[in-house]
């Protein structure tokens, strides 16, 4: 037994020597390429999303190289599987920065994996652009921005502000009521920013009612909201509660327009509450049928013969951010790219991306407003709060 173990260990050592050797040779041979890293889930629950992200990045690298690459050099992408595990994400980040010496990392999609890699990035002075990690803590911790963490998606509180702005400016709502989940960070964040923005614009919050995660009956709260007769009701939670509460609201004779966030879109919502949510609006990262994304969708489908997932769209824009950053930096150096990423100003397929220096988030990024019409999600417009 011990002998076998020793043998296996010896083989592993030999192999790793061989592999590092190879890598070094490649280094020498490919000194005129710029290496970028990708990390995300290629196995487990989120494998579909990860695969789409990696495919998208590979596709864009090829396209960019065909156009002559960046800074006169070809780009090479190296990707590893995080298995959706924060611990594994740290290992992957160490490997990408330490062994592969990439200049920038794209991904991961999950906030849980994007948060713990910050120390690795700081030690290696390599920037990371997260794709769909929406938790505020990914880029800002205890009020201080993390120097090497960036992201391409909007954050949870932003959606609330966008919903409020759209309700007031576009839908012309003067009064709003909020029903929210008091036990959920996502719901609370959206609620807080909806309220602040709506009031700042001159609107009036006429009712704010909470419920607890797991509740199924919202009629007491809704009856109270009905009394105050709001123009819109904001429902910042997930589709199951949305289905139940919207149906109950209609049962009580409430005719106000319903509003929500990216917790809404689901086939279950339509199958359960088709009539109740008809004519409602919600904020999303993008719309699949938006004309602005059609080109990327077609290219992706032609190459991989399937439709891209939502993550692909954001990975696409993360790559655009990288290209803009490295071009501005003028040098394939992680620290310089990080500094340049703070000044990124590009128009991606998911909206205009202008990174905030204090937040490292895309500021004022347009949200996609979708309306439910006849059981379909119909794109209305790109929208940014002003």
């Amino acid at each position, binding site marked *: 037994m011990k002998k076998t173990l020793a043998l296996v260990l010896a083989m592993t050592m030999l192999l790793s020597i061989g592999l590092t050797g190879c890598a070094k040779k490649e280094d020498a041979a490919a000194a005129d390429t710029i290496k970028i890293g990708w990390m995300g889930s290629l196995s487990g629950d989120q494998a579909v999303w990860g695969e789409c992200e990696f495919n998208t990045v590979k596709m864009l690298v090829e396209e960019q190289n065909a156009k002559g690459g960046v800074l006169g050099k070809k780009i090479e992408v190296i990707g590893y599987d995080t298995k959706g595990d924060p611990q594994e994400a740290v290992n992957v980040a160490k490997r990408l920065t330490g062994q592969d010496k990439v200049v920038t990392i794209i991904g991961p999609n999950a906030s849980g994996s994007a948060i713990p890699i910050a120390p690795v990035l700081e030690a290696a002075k390599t920037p990371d652009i997260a794709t769909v990690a929406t938790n505020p803590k990914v880029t800002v911790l205890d009020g201080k921005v993390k120097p090497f963490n960036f992201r391409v998606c909007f954050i949870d509180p932003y959606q609330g502000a966008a919903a409020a702005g759209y309700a007031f400016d576009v839908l012309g709502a003067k009064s709003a009521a909020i029903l929210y989940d*008091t036990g959920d960070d996502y719901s609370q964040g959206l609620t807080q920013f909806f309220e602040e923005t709506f009031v700042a614009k001159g609107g009036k919050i006429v009712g704010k*009612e*909470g419920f607890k995660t797991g509740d199924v009956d919202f009629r007491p709260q809704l*009856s*109270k909201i009905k009394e105050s007769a709001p123009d819109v009701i904001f429902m910042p939670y997930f589709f*199951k509660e949305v289905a139940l509460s919207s149906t109950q609201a209609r049962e*009580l004779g409430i005719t106000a327009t319903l509003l929500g966030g990216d917790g809404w879109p689901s086939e279950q919502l339509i199958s*359960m509450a088709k009539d109740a949510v008809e004519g409602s609006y919600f904020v999303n990262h993008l719309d699949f049928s938006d004309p602005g994304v059609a080109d990327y969708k077609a290219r992706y489908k032609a190459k991989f013969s399937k439709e891209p997932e939502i993550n692909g769209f954001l990975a696409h824009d993360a790559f655009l951010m990288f290209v803009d950053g490295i071009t501005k930096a003028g040098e394939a150096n992680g620290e310089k790219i990080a500094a340049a990423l703070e000044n990124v100003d590009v128009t991606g397929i998911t909206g205009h991306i202008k990174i905030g220096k204090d937040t490292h988030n895309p500021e004022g990024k347009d949200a996609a407003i979708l309306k439910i019409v006849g059981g379909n999600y119909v794109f209305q417009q790109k929208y940014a709060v002003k």
Partner: protein
Amino acid sequence: MLQFLQQLINGLSIGSVYALMAVGYSLVYSIMNFSNFAHGGVIMLGAYFGFFYLTIYKMPFIAAFAAAALTTALLAVVIERTAYKPLRDRKAPFLYFIISAMGASIFLENIVIATIGPTFRTYPQVVEKAPVAIGSLSIGRLDIMMFIISAICLGLLVYVIDHTKIGKAITATSYSTKGSALMGVNTDFIIITVFAIGGLLAGVAGVLFGMKYTVYPQIGFITLKSFIAAVFGGLGSLPGAVIGSVLLGVIETFTSGYLSSQYRDLIAFVLLITVLVVRPMGLMGKVTEDKA
């Protein structure tokens, strides 16, 4: 005033859901002297059975309803035979029954997550969704139906307990298991009967709950409220369970409606503790000693 009436209707409707579930807890408690937490799991499965009978086997609603109730009755008896009878035979302390019941409840929830999946399912529409409107008050058709079905079930149950031979045997057993066994009552059979009745009610409650709020593995969590209602009304007393449930539903609704929904559970539980401190047997309970 209008708001008051609407909230009263909301409260009665929520209360009648609690009542149907609470009676099952009370019934088993009156005989076995322990809280059968597996009841929540059986209700949850009742909702799933009803859903599958309706969608996969395409049964007409009444047939699916009855079939679901019969299946859960059988399930409740199976749970009694496997999880409780071995304990009874060994004269285990009551605490063991409660732990066994909790185990059964967790088992049922997880077996559903593992086999059917954690996502929720929606019942096909059986009753028209548009509510009955009286002025600007609205009463859901499903609520009316639930109220009527609950009333019929509870009425039948009271009739069976008060006016049939088996009902008398159940009453006798609830006073003293040993005494009625000495008088020639087959107590083992009575226990099976009680579980079967509890299972029937669980099936009815499950299907009604599923129709109103969709079906998902954590329904058992909601049934805890009905357990509280049963304690509130007096565990072991059927009228107590019904009154406790309706009161709890109305109190909750008024708290949410007039104070704040954050205070809903706070007030409901403070009330529960107050009732237990002032009247440990609950509103309608008879016996107080040594019950868990």
